[in-house]
């Protein structure tokens, strides 16, 4: 009896969880859910005189869309894998105590504050065939002219785009892992060491599995962003095939309004693939 009275008081006192969440849920539902629903409706031709699957059929039947999808998947997978790997390594180094640790952490985090577009311009200035590195190579007599420098931006393999995402996301992954390591503490590894594990074995068999959920979560965010964002591929990517978000943006801004539903279908495709892959990553975890 006492228990049920307490829970009744709690419900009255704090309100039902759904009720408490309602204001935030409303904003999310209207802004994000609404956008999604309108986008989906647009892809089925809503507002253009009836519903149809034409836009989806056109998009899925177009080779260029599939090539763009392939390129975007490559960009997202490569950026996520490299960011996770380097971010993990950096976090493992930065968690140790050493003189100047505070400064090192600050420098590590600093590019979190730089906007993507600015970072992408920086990469362009650094890596393009007329960029800083190319000029140094030219000055040192290593190459004859801009064409002698390997194409690292607007290139087939999207190296410039991946370099930008890695540069930008390594601190993000690193920070999440550092915070996670702080809450895990040293004891799990200490327990492993006391049971006979070498420092490397303790890290591999105990610390890394404990960090895995956080790494997957952070990786999913990086994947979703690098798969769906368009400003960096616009600045650093090749024009054919463009990354999938760039293709959606091109169709959306096409003077021919008939291309709009296709833009919506591509955008929905991006959201769908992203959601499915992230779902698979989380399922693999458990």
């Amino acid at each position, binding site marked *: 009896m006492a228990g049920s009275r307490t829970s009744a008081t709690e419900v009255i006192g704090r309100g039902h969880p759904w009720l408490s969440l309602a204001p935030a849920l409303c904003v999310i539902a209207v802004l994000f859910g609404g956008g999604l629903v309108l986008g989906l409706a647009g892809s089925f031709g809503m507002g253009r005189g009836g519903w149809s699957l034409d836009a989806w059929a056109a998009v899925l039947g177009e080779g260029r869309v599939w090539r763009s999808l392939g390129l975007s998947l490559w960009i997202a997978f490569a950026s996520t894998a490299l960011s996770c790997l380097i971010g993990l390594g950096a976090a493992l180094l930065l968690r140790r105590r050493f003189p100047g640790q505070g400064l090192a952490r600050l420098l590590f985090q600093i590019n979190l504050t730089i906007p993507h577009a600015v970072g992408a311009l920086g990469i362009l200035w650094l890596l393009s065939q007329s960029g800083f590195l190319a000029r140094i190579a030219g000055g040192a007599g290593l190459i004859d002219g801009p064409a002698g420098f390997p194409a690292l931006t607007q290139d087939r393999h999207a190296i410039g785009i991946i370099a930008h995402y890695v540069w930008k996301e390594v601190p993000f992954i690193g920070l999440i892992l550092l915070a996670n390591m702080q809450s895990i503490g040293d*004891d*799990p590894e*200490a*327990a*492993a*060491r*006391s*049971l*006979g*594990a*070498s*420092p490397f*074995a303790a890290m591999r*068999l*105990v610390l890394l*599995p*404990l960090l*895995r959920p956080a790494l997957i979560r952070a990786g999913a965010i990086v994947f979703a962003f690098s798969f769906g964002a368009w400003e960096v591929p616009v600045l650093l990517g090749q024009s054919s095939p463009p990354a999938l978000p760039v293709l959606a943006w091109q169709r959306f801004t096409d003077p021919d309004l008939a291309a709009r539903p296709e833009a919506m279908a591509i955008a929905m495709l991006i959201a769908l693939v992203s959601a499915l892959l992230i779902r698979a990553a989380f399922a693999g975890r458990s």
Partner: protein
Amino acid sequence: MTRLTLDTLDLRHPGTERPALDALSLEVADGEMVALLGPSGCGKTTALRVIAGLVAPDAGEVRFDGVSVGHLPPERREAVLVFQSGQLFAHMDVAANVGFGLRMQRRPKREIAERVAEALAQVQLGDLGHRRPHELSGGQRQRVALARALVLKPGLLLLDEPLSSLDAHLRGEMRALIRRLQRETGITTLVVTHDQEEAAVLGDRVALMLGGRIHQIGAGAALWNRPADLDVARFFGGCNFISGRSSGGGFDCALGRLLLPEGAPSGEGCLTLRPEAIEPGEGENALTLRVIETRFEGLLTRITAEGSGLRLEALMRAGAARGAVPGQDVRWRLPREALWVLPGV
């Protein structure tokens, strides 16, 4: 099994004023179980970590069987530390947790499986090998942590507050289990605790640690009844301290001459007796005191009484305490065998 020697260990954590270990010396005999008792913050867990090799001391030496192990990393010391929280690896099942150390020793899979089953049976968890740590109760988790250490047959077992996370009922059970396993295996064991009762039950000897060093070591009863100094007496709940002079088997103080037990130190000093040792009634060392205050503390009642300008505190059961009414006189007997003199205090 291993004989453990701690030789004047010093350790100061950076940025702290008081040292965590202050010339800490301790000898634990082969096969002995010593309880390292102390209040929180006295450095006892730090001492365990130094012995396990997880923390390096600023000075001093840790020796196993007389040989210094200062240069050995934790994984190469013959000591296993069982953490207060158990520290089971959440991503492994119970059997993998228990077999972890054997896996590190690259033992064959079959041997690991056999020894894990044996260790789990020892702690009465034979059928839970496939469970995950989060599916276990607090007591079961602690037993798995114990099995994980015992399966390695270490020379030295270090237990850090193994019972503090358990409720009273489980604590008694686990205490008996630790005691039994230690007797059966004969592994030299150092168990850290802040609980006096636990220390007395678990330890062949109890070492009281205060402020980073051992103040007294001996059988549990000796520390309770024959404290070496004022700090030890206070830690064990001593609250009656009377200054005076001990000579010829008696103690002269403001209360008159009290008869002392045999072997009590002579000279200027401080007489101490535990509050629960005071009895109501007549006899040897009987005094008349005026009751100042009584306070109900559950099973016992704490009575403060005054005589010749000195205050004494007594803890009595309800029946014995009934006669004590504030403002009235009582006759209390201070049993000779319960008195002890702290010389030079």
